[in-house]
């Protein structure tokens, strides 16, 4: 019986990476991976244990659950408790602590909160129960935004009036730009996310090379892809080059998926958005266009922008910017654990703190 996926010659990749890092031995290199799935892969495949000492892979704000502001949870909770709507969401959001409550608490109080694996399930429930208002939480980057956009178009075309979206979708590029413009943050290069890049295209990162003079490589989601991406980055750094490269060519093109970009554009408009830990970033969110106002929870229930809030002592903001490792936060593994999370980075399995907690132990190798 086959076991795990066949092994590419990863030993050679690791050897190459070490040789490249040796040539830069006088300088510590910080590469940021901007995707929660990359974060999990880096930990679950033991990639961190293979990296040379002067190469640090740090996690960025790429976990959609982690960057959704706490006030958004409270808004969803109020809808479930005060407006008798059924809130439908992807799983990780249920346990995220808001400012005053979580959707898990709402469920305990009798509020209707259910987990779906696909937005189509939420549409199906809306069709089966036409008298029940369904509020779907639109969370995620350009990866999940097209599905929400398509669902809104479908609901409008088919007259499914009880399907409503509370939107917190985000755009990754403005967040990367904000990080690069922050003088406190030192990032030598980016490992760009595969899934988002399928939609936005590798060309979207050109500004990182042209304006910010840093290498950026798009990589897929297994350990080999990430190793290949790191080798490309280090090769550029050794050669003194800065360019955008793509080692995930089987899925990611230069232009991305034009159809998905078009549908995002038809339904959403870029707007200022609040990121948990990072604050307000211009053009980094996606608001539902007025043409879909009848299906927009912000309009229907007259909701303002969600409040941002960080619990006392929580250093998620610095973790999300790659300024500290999760273990440097005093709450980490003490008051803040996956069973009782304080900060958002501990809730989602793709959160830096959760991945760090799961795959590391004090005193353990790597």
């Amino acid at each position: 019986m086959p076991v795990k996926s066949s092994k590419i010659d990863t030993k050679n990749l690791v050897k190459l990476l070490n040789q490249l890092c040796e040539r830069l031995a006088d300088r510590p290199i910080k590469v940021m991976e901007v995707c929660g799935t990359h974060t999990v892969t880096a930990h679950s495949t033991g990639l961190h244990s293979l990296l040379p000492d002067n190469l640090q892979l740090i996690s960025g704000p790429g976990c959609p659950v982690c960057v959704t502001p706490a006030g958004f949870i409270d808004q969803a909770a109020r809808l479930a408790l005060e407006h008798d709507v059924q809130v439908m969401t992807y799983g990780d959001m249920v346990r995220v602590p808001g400012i005053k409550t979580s959707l898990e608490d709402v469920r305990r109080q009798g509020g209707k909160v259910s987990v779906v694996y696909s937005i189509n399930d939420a549409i199906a429930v809306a069709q089966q129960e036409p008298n029940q208002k369904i509020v779907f939480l639109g969370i995620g980057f350009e990866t999940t935004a097209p599905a929400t956009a398509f669902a809104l178009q479908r609901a409008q075309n088919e007259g499914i009036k009880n399907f409503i979206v509370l939107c917190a979708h985000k755009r990754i590029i403005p967040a990367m730009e904000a990080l690069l413009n922050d003088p406190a943050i030192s990032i030598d290069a980016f490992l760009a996310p595969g899934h988002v890049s399928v939609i936005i295209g590798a060309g979207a990162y050109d500004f990182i090379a042209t304006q910010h003079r840093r290498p950026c490589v798009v990589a897929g989601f297994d350990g080999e892809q990430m190793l290949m991406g790191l080798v490309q980055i280090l090769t550029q750094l050794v050669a003194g080059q800065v360019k955008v490269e793509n080692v995930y060519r089987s899925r990611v093109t230069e232009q991305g998926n034009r159809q998905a970009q078009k549908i995002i554009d038809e339904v959403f408009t870029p707007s200022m958005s609040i990121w948990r830990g990072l604050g307000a970033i211009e053009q980094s969110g996606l608001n539902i266009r007025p043409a879909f106002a009848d299906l927009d929870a912000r309009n229907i229930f007259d909701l303002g922008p969600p409040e941002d809030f960080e619990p006392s002592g929580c250093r998620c903001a610095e973790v999300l910017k790659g300024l500290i490792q999760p273990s440097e936060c005093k709450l980490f593994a003490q008051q803040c654990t996956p069973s009782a999370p304080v900060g958002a980075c501990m809730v989602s399995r793709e959160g830096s703190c959760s991945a760090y907690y799961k795959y590391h132990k004090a005193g353990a190798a790597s």
Partner: protein
Amino acid sequence: MQELIRQEIIPRLGGKSLIELADSARLDLPHTTLAFTTDSFVVWPLFFPGGDIGRLAVCGTVNDLAARGAKPLALSLALIVEEGLPMNTLRRILKSVSDAACQAQVEVVTGDTKVVERGSANQLFITTSGVGIMPSNLDFTPGRIEPGDVLIINGAIGDHGIAVMSVREGISFASSVKSDVAPLAQMVQKVIKGCGPAVKCMKDPTRGGLAANLNEMAQNVGFVLEEEKIPIRPEVQGACDLLGLDALTVANEGKMLFLVCPDSASKTLDILRDHPLGAEAAVIGRADDKKRLVRLKTALGGERIIDTPYGRELPRIC
């Protein structure tokens, strides 16, 4: 759950056997040694590919006895039936109990049936208890494991958890995965007969999968596993990837972990592979001296920790 047991239950009830938290309790009588265990089954849906709650209730208890090296002697069966459960459903499940007991060569000798009002149970809950005869001179507890002992499993991991989840979550591509639910006592008895005290410890990695159970066993030793040697079906791995699950945390109901002396490893493998429930047996790692630490040598060539899974596993969103 572990917290609840350790903080609330054991301080109030704990005798010597309960504190051990073994799969079965050991009862030393004047002329014999018995293993005694109990387990409740609340699986939903009641029927899943490869089995149902009835087969599960027999196998789960038989395997808890088997893990202690006991030969199952008799089972009790308690049914909590929700009002309105179709009689045909109950009949199918009872047939399944009977078939599984027959396969395990164990008799259901006592039982109880309660009907509760609608809404007080989810169609059917079953509790089974079992007694078995233990070899009086041998015990298979984690305390016996020494660094260097070889870790063997009798087949592919994650089948049961994914079979149940594929029905529950409607994952069509995983619908070919069948639960591995099976009574393992006879297979285990063959290993004990063949290898005797060279078998140090056994454990059936049910809830929490390999991750939870190996962490429980890692008291005086640690374990290091090799990812590439752990048998797993591609469709199980695919479903785990889709749901964002680590296959090492997914439940099994027909698997046994064996810790054996290095020089008995190949004999153990031969005995297992000769048995229909052990045809895919494999050495997947070994014990080492890094106490309380379970590590994985990854396919990528790296290393990471395998920690006890926490809470309810939820799917990721992108």
